[in-house]
């Protein structure tokens, strides 16, 4: 059930990134909601289950981003495992920490994409395109991380104000 939820979120992120958000952001730059979802999964899931999910998600992302099959599978899996390795030591409710993760994730994603394309594919000056877009991409990712983090917190506050028994009880682990 949780996996289905992640897949629906990924689908929504792709529709937003490919159709609904581009008119608002000129120059082809848009927030990378799939990366934000990957970081979020990294904070919540186990390496095996989350790793398989994110790798599959990367392949679907490849169908709508670029022309290199397997590229985003590799990039998102690496970002996920990095976040996963740090998740147990972090307070995931802290906004500055989320910003650090999103900022670091954006840089890691850009570096891995450039590495994978410049070293393995025949593409010239791809690094220049990435370098050109990176500041705006970073700002947008941080802004959307802030918006999503705040909306999540508001939703949880609203859910807590509802009368007891209206929502299914959360299992404490």
């Amino acid at each position, binding site marked *: 059930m949780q996996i289905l939820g992640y897949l629906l979120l990924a689908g929504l992120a792709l529709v937003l990134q490919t159709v*609904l958000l581009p008119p608002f952001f000129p120059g082809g730059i848009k927030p990378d909601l799939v990366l934000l979802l990957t970081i979020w999964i990294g904070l919540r899931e186990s390496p095996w289950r989350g790793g398989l999910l994110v790798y599959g998600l990367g392949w679907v992302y490849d169908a*709508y981003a670029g022309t290199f099959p397997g590229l985003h599978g590799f990039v998102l899996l690496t970002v996920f495992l990095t976040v996963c390795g740090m998740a147990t030591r972090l307070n995931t409710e802290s906004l500055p920490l989320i910003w650090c993760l999103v900022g670091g994730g954006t840089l890691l994603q*850009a570096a891995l994409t450039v590495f994978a394309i410049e070293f393995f594919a025949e593409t010239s000056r791809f690094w220049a395109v990435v370098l050109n877009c990176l500041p705006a991409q970073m700002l947008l990712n941080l802004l959307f991380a802030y918006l999503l983090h705040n909306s999540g917190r508001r939703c949880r506050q609203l859910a807590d104000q509802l009368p007891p028994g209206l929502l299914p009880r959360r299992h404490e682990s």
Partner: protein
Amino acid sequence: MWEWWKKNRSLLFGLALILAALLTYSLGLKDDGRTGWVEGLALRTGGPVLGVAAGARYSVAGIWDAVIPGGSSLDLDAESRRLRAEMAGIEELKRENDRLRRLLGFVEEHPRRSVAARVIAEDASSWFRTIEIDRGYEDGVTEGLSVVDAAGLVGRVVRSTAHAAQVLLITDASSAVAVLVQDERIRGVCRGQGGTLALDFALVQDAIQVGDGVITSGLGGVFPKGLVVGYVRSVHREQFGLFQTVEVEPAVDFAHLEEVLVLLKETP
């Protein structure tokens, strides 16, 4: 040794997974130019959803533009807003008609078999430049075909499913087009740089000037000869060097691309 293995087991598994993913990516690069089954499945499944979302986006954008011109008409009463929305619908149809008329003009100028397609999505990533169109191999749209609009060359089809296809734009960093500077007949290769194009292999003694037209040369057999690619935006000549640096502005406005033409294969 056992202790070390137990301590670093997770890290080693993680590294092995990343290495396997990199290897799979590397092997996938040696493709035969056909659409892989994973991408095909994703495009087939997502195509209709994107089509519906794109239809909604275009309608809302058209109505929004007409109902709230510059945000100054927020106090219109309900009836006038309804009429404006109706007019916006008509205006949207008129604009679509104009665009299709221009495409038709292109078809008349370049008598080739072609099929019109609607742009339903842009690339999901900021690093790449591709679009999705609502025509696939059932309409004759297969990998490798050229895509144009009334202004000039848009790109080529790189993935195709039954009812949707992905087009690599000429502005993508992995795109290369064999070109001719129209007046001087100087050959070169235009490579994508995200927003503009770089004309490579133009010798320093070639007399290229700002504003010169750049067209496809037909070499390589990917794009037909004579399609407008763009116009020279800037030229830099170093004192010592074999080639000059030439920047080309694409003829097509990629930010407002809504309909395109796919040039089909000529039947023998």
